[in-house]
């Protein structure tokens, strides 16, 4: 699927080479597309060799990956459905990254967001659906937001490493969820699968008309665009990037770094919390342990592959959604174990991280050749 995507990019990169002005202007942008594209092609090639070692035809592999991820309208919907939560959870890592923080606890914010959203929906069963849904969005954002703000505050006021604290908060979040779901919030009729009561069919947000893809995708895309504008086109975002570049310099010029950290953490957690709310309101209809499906952790991978750029998160999430959508077909048609998809994700991750070293080093793209 990606070979086709990468080729035209190379063509674009090559054809206007005669005009150095063009390259000077767009060289960096082209670099941002070309290098990850090449890394992806390289990763797919290595994965092909890996699969060939198991006696499978790599061409079959590429064909099935393409078919399973993007080959049919159904496959597209499958891919987009899987991508939807990843866009939001990736923002949970990408936003704090602007401040130089590595937050990897999106999963915890997702769970707390889901729990908060479910609680509010169960608390106001008499309200009209639209009110319940808006209340759920607010509760999800606030719940998830406060959860990651906790990690930000620990870092700001107590000097606790935010990577460790946000990761540990995942397990605390899961424990709280399990405790409530198996305790006070348990629906007594959920005998062998402890769950909360259902929020009710009327309160579900449903699918985008004409598709099977739930509204989470739209929420994700809007949030990604909003984050992009916030980071690159507002004073607030500029301040955040300054603080991320050099925190002492930011303090010297009088930026409120502490406030920035807390606000960015709140927004980041809010995005993941929103993902949790959507899982409840569009998919599960209630809260139980099923929500801990690892979207928060895959989101970290998405954010790093997108180089923490909120806009790049959208295609990367779709790519990873596609890989996981095609994983089933690889299992069924090629008899590959499920872990092969993880192998591919791992190879892509290594290639993209390694390709980081290439930025700014391709002389050709600087228009100096």
């Amino acid at each position, binding site marked *: 699927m990606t070979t086709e995507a990468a080729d035209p990019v190379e063509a674009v990169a090559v054809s206007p080479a005669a005009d150095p002005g063009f390259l000077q202007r767009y060289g960096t942008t082209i670099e941002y597309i070309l290098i990850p594209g090449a890394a992806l092609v390289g990763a797919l090639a290595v994965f092909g060799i890996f699969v060939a070692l198991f006696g499978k035809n790599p061409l079959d592999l590429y064909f099935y990956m393409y*078919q*399973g991820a993007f*080959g*049919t*309208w*159904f*496959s597209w919907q*499958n891919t987009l*459905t*899987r991508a939807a939560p990843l866009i939001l959870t990736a923002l949970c890592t990408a936003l704090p990254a602007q401040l130089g923080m590595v937050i990897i606890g999106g999963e915890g914010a997702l769970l707390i967001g889901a729990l908060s959203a479910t609680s509010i929906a169960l608390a106001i069963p008499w309200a009209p659906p639209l009110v319940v849904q808006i209340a759920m969005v607010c509760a999800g954002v606030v719940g998830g937001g406060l959860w990651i703000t906790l990690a930000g505050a620990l870092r700001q006021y107590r000097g606790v490493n935010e990577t460790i604290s946000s990761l540990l908060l995942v397990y605390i979040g899961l424990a709280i969820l*399990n405790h409530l779901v*198996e*305790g006070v919030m348990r629906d007594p009729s959920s*005998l*062998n*699968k*402890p769950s909360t009561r259902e929020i009710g069919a009327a309160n579900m947000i449903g699918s985008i008309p004409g598709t*099977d893809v*739930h509204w989470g995708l739209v929420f994700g895309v809007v949030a990604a665009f909003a984050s992009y504008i916030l980071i690159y086109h507002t004073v607030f975002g500029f301040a955040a990037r300054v603080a991320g570049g050099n925190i002492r310099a930011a303090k010297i010029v009088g930026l409120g770094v502490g406030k920035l950290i807390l606000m960015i953490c709140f927004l980041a957690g809010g995005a993941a919390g929103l993902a949790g709310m959507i*899982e409840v309101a569009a*998919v*599960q*209809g209630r809260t*139980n*342990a*099923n*929500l801990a*499906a*690892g979207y928060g952790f895959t989101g970290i991978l998405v954010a790093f592959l997108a180089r923490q750029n909120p806009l790049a998160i959208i295609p990367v999430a779709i790519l990873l959604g596609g890989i*996981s*959508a095609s994983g*089933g*077909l690889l*299992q*069924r048609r090629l008899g590959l*174990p*499920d872990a092969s998809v993880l192998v591919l994700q791992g190879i892509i991750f290594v290639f993209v991280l390694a390709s980081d070293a290439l930025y700014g080093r391709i002389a050709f793209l600087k228009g100096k050749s």
Partner: protein
Amino acid sequence: MDFAKISRRHLLRGSAALTLGSVLGVRSAAAADTTIGFIYVGSRDDYGYNQAHAQGAAALKKMRGLKVVEEEKVPETDAVEKTIESMINLDGASLLFPTSFGYYNPHVIKMANKFPKLRFEHCGGLWSDKDPKNAGSYFGYIDEAQYISGIVAGYSTKSGKLGFVAAKPIPQVLRNINAFTLGAKLANPKATTQVIFTGDWSMPVKEAEATNSLIDQGVDVLTCHVDGPKTMVENAARRGAMVCGYHVNQSPLAPKAYLTGAEWNWEALYPKFVKMIAAGEAIPNFYRGGLKEEIVKCSPYGEAVSAEARKHADDIKAKLIAGGYTIFKGPIMDNKGKTVITAGTDRGQKDPELEKMDYLVEGVTGATS
């Protein structure tokens, strides 16, 4: 979604089939084309829950005219809906076995409503009249086999202390713990069962810790109810304790320490289902059974099982198969001294009260919350 199938391969295959059909004359295409989809929540070689289902799927692969497609490690989110649709749209599956408990509500129900002509057989769910008619839930009274394991364990223990590594204090698990303990008390009225809950279905590290901790406390025969008993079986055998297996036969993992075990007999049930469908019989939407109905079975005895234990266990097994033997026969006290089944009350296997079990019987050390 039919254009999903128009790939070059399909065309080739289709035309080949046409040619073959016209050469060989009329062949029942419908019978030869039944595709059955199996979906597992974990890995299909886990020596546990998923492997038991995969063994059932393997039995179907041996039957003529059936094609089996399998997908493992599918989480209990909308991913399972997409897997089901993918099996239907891309593989042409007409009978589906989504085998994990958490798939049922809302995912399987949703898919059964969406594809009313296809058949969905779900393991463990509680089908009710409100649910779609083309969905069914089947499960087995595996506590009967646990009861037999308990008898064997009661004869085999020297310390009189038995150990049970359990996932969650939900009715199904409590019922197994209680049946195992009641069985052990038949053999050795002083036997006690110490239970440790790990909190989730697949927690290998906690399962190993629980196993070690039980053995440190003097337990010399262990069993479990988690998704993959491999960790418990291997660790217990290494420490010199004996084990009773669960889900599938784990004796290859610990040939000397393995006494017997409570196994699913899906390799008998699944071919039966397929034959019923082929014969035009309706599979009851709510399908249950135990040793008698060949839905569960006991592992063959290991060499360490005494002749006395074999005789007693075989005797009870024969009674259970003949019918009329009750495991949960009053008076039964819980481990807090409260009478939970009064004298004279027989709670037979199909008694709905047993589906709500929330206590541990006298002789079990541990708490449900």
